[in-house]
Each structure stands twice: as structure tokens, then as C-alpha cells.
């Protein structure tokens, strides 16, 4: 590599790392070299082995083969504590914070000091100092559950800095943030790198990686594809090729929508979440035939509850749900199936499929009651298998056989199976919740194509996703949900990422905005 200032001894040097899990080779002789003071991106699709590699570096897993050097010294970590002692701290995708504890309590958790007596004031003072030094604004005495996701992430960073971590691993840190919060995070990371910290940034988002990283290492299926290439010397296309192993189309071919009459609407919908707190506070939406309505929002703002309330899986406390003008509020799911509502749930294993039933049986879960499969109280196995063979072919589901239990399918094929079941009956309304979460690029493309196909055939699609890019590329109209309320509905052509991001964070913008909010 070019320029000079880098020290010769890398901060982290991992060589020939191998990690096996039952049935999976998660890391296959992977190398990673990270220099002091750089932001190093670890890029790869889901299941490429990024998190496994970093869990090894942070002491959570032990490698089966290979060696790790930190600042030239050979190390072996028995637990995360050993890694922290060497200055390596990992910030997990799911925050490792105790919700009922204060910020200060979370930060001192697991420390050797104090030995016995807790002194919250003293810790809070130290935390306050740290947060000022690194410009990470958070109140040390507030409880974690009171904080926004962005603030919680700051607590995680502070927690590691407090432990003297100089090498910070961040596992997909932007997945839960709004675009503005991402910008704040990047500023913090750059500042920390400048002051000598080393940052390893795990991601599968190409734009992000190119925006923040100095150098990039790419993994695919547990193997090293590219080691420490300069971010300035690669293009997005090249990176995508390295990550996926083939050419990727970034644009989805999309015909203009021919929106018709309203097929599904909710009016002033109210529902509670699992804790019994209000999750939907008067949501009104209309989905028309032949269009995709994208619902954007940060996780946990009522998306899940909305989908469940529409599909009869969560009690509606107030308001109305109509399908084709017919009221179906609190109707049983079977009524909705009869009305032609297809539901692609977020939880594929628990709600979307019965893991121990065969692929053929799973494919029939929607229409087994009626001929040709259902025949009074009997199931016509021949018809059931015939349907399965057809659907497996049409939807390109890769499975050893139609008798294979669905739990053995890969994520992408499981999702294709669910789509095959839900979409094959020619639905009039499709409710899709995070339909591509955790899927690889190929399966994602397939899912997108199928959703567009339904739209073109005249179904109304409600697409709920946290991936703003997905919504922007698929949706014809975009609604933003925040704390159980719809912030706005706009045509996709008029949508502005900046504005959507602000709304996702709870700021009303545009016409009729409230007075001066940042």
C-alpha cells in the first residue's frame, strides 16, 4: 500500500483462522490485518463468516486453527475479558445492555473496580468526562430503556472506551439507525480513528463501507475474497462482485404502476404491543390495487403490530380494517385468507412455516381446507404432492425433496417457499414484513421480482421494511411510521431520503411542520 504514516506492526493480525460449527465451516483459513488508527471494513453477505471471525477476535469463540497477534504479540483469548485486557472491545449488533440498569451501571458492569462497594457518583463523573472527550452525548444516570437506539449505541462505545479499548469492533452498527444517526456515528468513528483508535466495521452495505472505511477486507462463504484493499482504489461494482461472486444489478426493472381502486385500508387503527402498551395510535393507510405501498421506519415503531393487526393475529383495540370495502376488523385469519390476503411474516420459522412439517405440507397450509387438497375431513395426498411439485418448480425452491422438513431449508429457500404458498392463490392484498431480511443477494432479487410481479398482476402490496433502499427501489408510494403513527405518505418519485430519515426519527417536516425542530 501507499503512504507512510502507518506503523509496521499491525494492531491486529489474524492468520489462517478456521472455525467449524456442526455442519458448517464458518471460517476457512481467513486472514485479517488491521493497522493502528484506521477504519477497516469487514464486508460480506449474511453468513459469510464476518461475525464469527469477530467473535473469535473478541474472545467469545475460540478458533479451531490459526493464530492471532495483537500489536505483534501472540495471544489466545479464553473469554471476552481476555480480549478487553488487550484493548479489544466488540459492540454487538444486538446491544449488550441491561435495560433496567442506568448508563453508569452498565458501564461498570464486569469491571474489576470497584471490588465490593458501588459508588455511582464516581462512575458517573468518569463517564461524563469520557463522553465529553469523545463527543458522545449521553446522561450517565438515565436508564437504558429510556434511551433511543442511537444513544444506546453511544453507551456501548463508551463502555468499551471506559475499559481502555483501543481496537473497537462494530457489528453492523448502522442497521438500526436513521440516516442522520448514521452520519453522527461516522463522525464519531472518524474522530476516534484520528485520535489513534482502530476500528473494525462489519457491514454488508457497500455504500456505507465506501463512505467510512480506509481499507476493506471481503469474505464470502467463510473464505477470504480480498484482503485489506484501499477503499479509494475500488468501485462499488467491484466490491459487489467480490462479495457476491457474480455481477449484481443494482437497479430493479420496474414498470410504472397502474394503481386502481383501494383494496385494503385501515382507519384509525389502535393496538397494543406484547407488553400491553399502545403500539398503534390511530394508523390510517390505504393500499390500492396494482401498487406497492412501502412502510418505512426504524424497528419497533409499530410495524410488526400493524401487520399482525391487519392479518387478525393481534387484537384491534380501535379502528377498522377493510379488505375490498368489507370490514374484517378482528376477523379470524382464515377469513382473511378467504378474502385473498397473503401474509409474509417477519418470523419465518415461527409464524411463516411449521419447521417440522415437510415442504409439501408447508406449501399447503393456506389452501388445505378446500378442494382439490381438502376433501371434507380428509387430505388428498396426491393433490397435495402435485401442488408441491409445481410450486417448487415455478418458484425455484432448492430442496432435496418435497418431503424434506422445512427447517432444513436455507433462509432464502424457506422464504421462497413461504412466498410460493402465499402468492400462488392469486392474492388481492399482500402484506410483506421484512421480506428480504437476512437473505443473500440472489434470494433478495427473487423476492423483489415476485413482489413486483404481484403488483403488476393487480394486487395491492404493503411492504414493511427497515431497509430504506429496498423501499425506495420497490415502492410506488412511501409511508413513514414513528411510534405507532404515520408521519406522512408520499409518492416514491417525490421522496427525499433526508426527509424520510428525519421522519423516521420523529421529526415532522414539509407542509404544516411544527415550529423549529432540529
Amino acid at each position, binding site marked *: 500500500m501507499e503512504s507512510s504514516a502507518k506503523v509496521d506492526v499491525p494492531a491486529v493480525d489474524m492468520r489462517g483462522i478456521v472455525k467449524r460449527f456442526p455442519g458448517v465451516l464458518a471460517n476457512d483459513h481467513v486472514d485479517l490485518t488491521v493497522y493502528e488508527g484506521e477504519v477497516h471494513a469487514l464486508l460480506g453477505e449474511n453468513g459469510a463468516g464476518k461475525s464469527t471471525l469477530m467473535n473469535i477476535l473478541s474472545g467469545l469463540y475460540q478458533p479451531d486453527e490459526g493464530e492471532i497477534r495483537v500489536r505483534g504479540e501472540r495471544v489466545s483469548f479464553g473469554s471476552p475479558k481476555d480480549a478487553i485486557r488487550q484493548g479489544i472491545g466488540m459492540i454487538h449488533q*444486538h446491544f449488550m445492555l441491561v435495560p433496567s440498569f442506568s448508563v453508569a451501571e452498565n458501564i461498570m458492569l*464486569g469491571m474489576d473496580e470497584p*471490588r465490593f462497594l458501588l459508588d455511582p457518583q464516581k462512575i458517573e463523573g468518569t463517564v461524563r468526562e469520557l463522553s465529553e472527550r469523545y463527543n458522545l452525548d449521553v446522561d450517565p444516570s438515565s436508564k437504558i430503556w429510556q434511551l433511543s437506539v442511537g444513544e444506546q449505541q453511544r453507551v456501548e462505545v463508551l463502555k468499551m472506551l471506559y475499559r481502555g479499548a483501543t481496537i473497537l469492533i462494530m457489528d453492523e452498527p448502522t442497521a438500526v439507525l436513521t440516516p442522520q444517526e448514521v452520519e453522527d456515528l461516522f463522525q464519531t468513528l472518524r474522530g476516534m480513528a484520528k485520535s489513534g483508535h482502530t476500528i473494525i466495521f462489519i457491514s454488508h452495505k457497500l455504500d456505507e463501507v465506501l463512505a467510512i472505511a480506509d481499507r476493506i477486507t471481503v469474505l464470502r462463504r467463510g473464505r477470504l475474497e480480498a484482503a485489506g484493499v484501499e477503499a479509494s482504489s475500488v468501485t462499488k461494482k467491484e466490491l459487489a462482485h467480490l462479495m457476491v461472486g457474480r455481477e449484481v444489478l443494482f437497479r430493479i426493472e420496474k414498470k410504472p404502476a397502474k394503481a386502481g381502486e383501494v383494496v385494503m385500508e385501515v382507519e384509525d387503527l389502535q393496538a397494543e404491543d406484547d407488553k400491553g402498551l399502545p403500539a398503534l395510535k390511530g394508523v390510517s393507510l390505504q393500499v390500492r390495487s396494482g401498487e406497492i405501498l412501502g412502510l418505512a421506519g426504524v424497528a419497533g415503531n409499530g410495524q410488526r403490530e400493524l401487520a399482525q393487526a391487519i392479518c387478525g393475529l393481534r387484537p384491534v383495540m380501535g379502528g377498522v380494517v377493510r379488505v375490498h370495502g368489507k370490514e374484517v376488523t378482528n376477523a379470524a385469519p382464515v377469513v382473511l385468507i378467504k378474502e385473498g390476503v397473503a401474509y409474509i411474516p417477519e418470523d419465518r420459522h415461527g409464524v411463516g412455516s411449521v419447521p417440522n412439517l415437510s415442504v409439501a405440507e408447508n406449501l399447503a397450509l393456506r389452501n388445505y381446507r378446500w378442494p382439490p387438497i381438502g376433501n371434507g375431513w380428509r387430505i388428498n395426498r396426491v393433490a397435495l404432492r402435485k401442488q408441491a411439485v409445481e410450486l417448487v418448480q415455478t418458484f425455484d425452491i432448492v430442496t432435496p425433496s418435497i418431503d424434506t422438513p422445512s427447517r432444513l431449508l436455507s433462509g432464502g429457500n424457506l422464504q421462497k417457499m413461504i412466498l410460493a404458498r402465499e402468492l400462488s392463490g392469486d392474492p388481492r392484498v399482500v402484506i410483506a414484513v421484512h421480506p428480504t431480511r437476512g437473505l443473500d443477494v440472489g434470494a433478495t432479487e427473487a423476492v423483489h421480482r415476485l413482489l413486483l410481479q404481484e403488483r403488476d398482476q393487480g394486487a395491492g402490496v404493503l411492504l414493511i421494511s427497515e431497509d430504506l433502499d429496498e423501499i425506495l427501489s420497490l415502492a410506488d408510494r412511501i409511508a413513514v411510521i414513528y411510534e405507532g403513527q404515520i408521519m406522512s405518505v408520499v409518492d416514491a418519485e417525490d421522496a427525499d431520503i433526508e426527509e424520510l430519515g428525519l421522519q423516521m426519527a420523529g421529526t415532522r417536516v414539509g407542509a404544516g411542520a411544527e415550529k423549529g425542530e432540529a
Partner: protein
Amino acid sequence: MSDYLIFFTTILAAGVASGTPVLYATIGEVFSERAGVLNLGVEGMMLMGAVTAFRVSHVTGNPWLGLAMGILVGGLFSLLHALVSITLRGDQVVSGLALTFVGFGMSSVIGWPLIDVRDAPRLPAFDIPLLADIPVLGKIFFQHSVVVYIGFLLVPLAWFIINRTRPGLHMRAVGEYPAAADALGIHVDRLRYLYVLVGGLLAGMAGASLTLAITPLWIEGVTAGQGWIAVGLVIFAGWDPFRAAFGSYLFGAIRRLPLDLQGAPVLPWNLHLILRDPLLNYFTNMLPYLFTIAVLVIGSREAMRKKLGAPAALGTPYIRGERGV
């Protein structure tokens, strides 16, 4: 002093004494549950502690040795539950229930020769100098067996450990969000074992204090559901030792009403008739089971648990690599 004052002083003094075993058991269960392990075997551990303490005291003539052995056996017994629910990641409700049944059966066998024993040595009772002379309060709190006084000391100690010390913080973290604790190098399973053991030792102490001081005799199932009361009180006390103490003494008073106070003075609204009514006995005997039902109803509803402030990971085994809560 008026009749009324004597009457209520006597009730409360009796309540403090008879609530003491429940207090130990409740505090023990607070520790176990704060670390995330629900132990429904309190009744069984208490019975084992009770029978061991009584038998050792009877055979050796040394009640202190009896107390020590009772505590120890209660602790050992709890390790069974720890093994099933922590190491083997079994269902905590089933394992705890099993522990209660095993404890009941085993204590009945061990206690068989003790049924007619009336003269086993007891732990000493004494008045606390000066404090015992305070009017009313002295009679209620400071004229008791030594186990009652140890109970007084245990309550603030338990509160302090839970809320003001590093081990307490770690214990609560393990009960609230074990994945977070694990990521910071805290040994989740080790701590859970420790606090299940603490719960068992205290349940053993509860049983021992019963047969060595409060009800100094052995009959089959001598605890009469007090272990269940303890499990229920933990919830109503919101996992807090001071409120647990209040609940224990209150329960003790209620339980003693029909025994001690047949001669209640004439009270307004004919309350004395209720207190003198022998049927009240049946009502108080029913309480443990009412409590048990309440515990199971609350325990099975996640929303309700959250509202009451239960440790978030209560009842769920921790497996590394699985997503938190």
C-alpha cells in the same frame, strides 16, 4: 394498658415470630430469582432443612449443630435444582415442583422416628437488653428467639448486597440480561449456581428455625405450605428484602390469629366474632394454595411479569450464542 393494646401487641409479636421462617425462605428466593432462576422447590428445601435440624438436634443435643446441618442440607438440596435448570437447561417450573415432592417424601422418611419427640433441644430465646423494655415495640420485636434477631439483621444485609455492591450488580445483570453479562466476562452459570445455593441455604435456615424455635416439633409436612407463601411473597414484595420482611411478618400475624387469639376482646363491628371463629383456621390454611395459583398465573403472563418488575430473564436458561431477550 387497654385490652386493645395488649391484644394487638400480642398479635404482632406472634406474627414476627411465626413469620420468621417465611422471611428466610423469601429472602433466599429473592436471591435466586434476582439471578434469573425460579425455584418452586422452596417448600421441599424447607422441609429437608426442618427435619435435618430437628433430628440432629435431638440426637446430638446441640441445637446449633442442628441449625448448621439444616442450612447445609437445604443448600445441597437446591443444587439438584441448579443442576437441572442451569447445566441441563431444563424447565425450571417442573424441576422446582419435583424438588418440592422429593423434599416432602424424603423428610417424611427421615422424620418418621421423630413424630412423638417433644423434648428436642431448642435454640435459645432471650430479651434484648434495654430494647426489650420499650413499651409495645419491645414486646413486639425484642422478646424472641435468636432466629428472629438473625432475621432482623438479614433483611438490611440482603438489601445492601443486592443494591449497593458489585456482586449484587452482577447478580442482577445475570437475572436481567445474561447475554450482556456474558459479553463482559461475567460467568453467568457460575453466578446462577451460587445464588440458587444461597436460596437453598436460606430455605434450609427457614426450615431449621421452624423446628428449632418457632414450632419445635416434627410432623409430616410441618411447613404447611409456608414455602409456597415465600414464593408468592417474593412477587408481592417486588423482589425487595424490606417489603419481603413486611409481607412475612404480616403473613405470620394472619396465620397465628386463630391459634392465639381465641380470647380476643370485644371489637367494633363484631370483628372479634370473626377472629374467634374456628373457620378462620380453614381460611388461613387455604392461603398458601391461593398464593401458589397467583404465582402461576402471574408467572405465565409475560406482560404481567414486566409490570411487576420481575427480573427479565427469570425462568429462562442461558445459552451462549442465542439472541438476548
